[in-house]
């Protein structure tokens, strides 16, 4: 660790920030079932869990929601469509929820999410902020839902994957092609190859899903900190000491 300066009083004036706490992001305008609404909120909340029991808590929340049956899909989709366009993470979380529930009836909802027009980029001058990127991640997550349903034998999911293999956005096309090649029937794959040939996009078939261990890894490090200077991190599971 390099030695650091003290926190010297500052002569210039740094930026100031005022935050406002938002209301709960979900309105549930279309659902008066408060218990169901609470289950949806809990499942989304548990998505962001941390700690050794995070996944267990998340699965428990999902199981409670699953018991309510596929009628929850309409409530989740309505919430998705009622959220402000720029609530990207909240919108994504609802799509992820649809994916996790794995109801065959979800094909219609997932199709609708992917089909929605992607609004024009709001950060045209940025190289690392992109509203189009956020929209595409929402849709590739919906594609993942279709892939899982296709693997479960839901024919309609495969039809939708084939349709969006011709989507105008590269990442959505790529995800559909990979998903259909992995889970489709021989007939689906024949149709897909024909489509890609017509579109002169057979190169998409060459992009393979691989394990991270077989991807080229970088050689990290510009220099190595001597062991005697390095300070170890505290253990990850200390309890909070103050609120």
């Amino acid at each position, binding site marked *: 660790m390099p030695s650091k300066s003290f926190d010297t009083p*500052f002569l210039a004036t740094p930026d100031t920030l*005022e935050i406002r706490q*938002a209301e709960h992001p979900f309105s549930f305008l279309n659902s008066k079932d408060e218990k169901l609404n609470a289950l949806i909120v809990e499942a989304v909340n548990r*998505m962001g869990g941390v700690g050794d029991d995070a996944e267990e808590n998340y699965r428990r929340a999902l199981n409670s929601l699953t018991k309510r049956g596929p009628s929850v899909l309409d409530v989740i989709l309505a919430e998705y469509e009622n959220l402000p366009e720029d609530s990207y993470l*909240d919108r994504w979380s609802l799509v992820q929820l649809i994916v996790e529930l794995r109801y065959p009836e979800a094909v219609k909802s997932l199709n609708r999410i992917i089909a929605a027009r992607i609004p024009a980029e709001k950060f045209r001058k940025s190289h690392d902020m992109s509203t189009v990127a956020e929209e595409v991640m929402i849709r590739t997550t919906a594609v993942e839902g279709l892939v899982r349903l296709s693997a479960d034998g839901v024919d309609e999911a495969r039809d939708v994957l084939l349709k969006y293999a011709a989507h105008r956005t590269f990442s959505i096309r790529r995800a559909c092609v990979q998903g259909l090649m992995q889970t489709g029937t021989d007939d689906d794959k024949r149709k897909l190859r024909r489509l890609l040939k017509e579109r002169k996009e057979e190169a998409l078939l060459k*992009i393979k899903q691989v*394990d991270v261990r077989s991807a080229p890894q970088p050689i990290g490090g510009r220099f190595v*900190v001597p062991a005697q200077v390095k300070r170890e991190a505290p253990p990850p599971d200390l309890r909070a000491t103050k609120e």
Partner: protein
Amino acid sequence: MASCTYTVPDKAASGDNFYGAVICNQAYVDYFWNTYGFSGNKAYWDDGWGWDDCCNTSKPLARAFNGCYALTYSASDYLNDSYSAPILNWGRRYVRENIDDLRSFCGDGTAIARSKSGGLVEVYLGFFYSKDVPGRAETLIHESRHQGGKPHDANFPSGSVFGSGKSGADSSWDYEGAWMYGALYLWWYFAEGARTTSALRQRARQRGNLVIDNAFATHPGFSI
């Protein structure tokens, strides 16, 4: 000086609700403050940025700490930060060795973060409020790679969500630039991230694939 306001979005899916309850411990606050470039920069984390309220995950400092927690502890064997281990292990080491000063600013809405000379990295509102927790760790690694001597060296490919033909891409995966470091971190987080949920790991996968598909002039030919 700029003044900015921000309406804090829901903290559930981003991970801030739960990470917030964990990082509120003086041992973590001290470690993150002294390790990841906050030390010496109090003035940039005061005046609404959270210096006097570092457990409040509505404020930027706690949200930065949440990203630091993910960066530090997402490998199950986090104490091994050898460069021969996966980037999930040594990402935290690479950040601490390359970012000397981490400062917060309002920003002009055109960037999440910027790397300046001399080990200085600036993070803007989008870093705290549009990125999920592992995404903040990805950003710190991305900017650290710039500090490590790798600027972007190409234009984004045709059809890229980041803007066809704009500068800011990396030429290839083998260039081992900032996009490769960030994507690879997310990839490992998806594959082996510990103390998290399958949902946040899926989020990392989607973001990693987006980077692989759109941020290299020549597509690497694989995906997550």
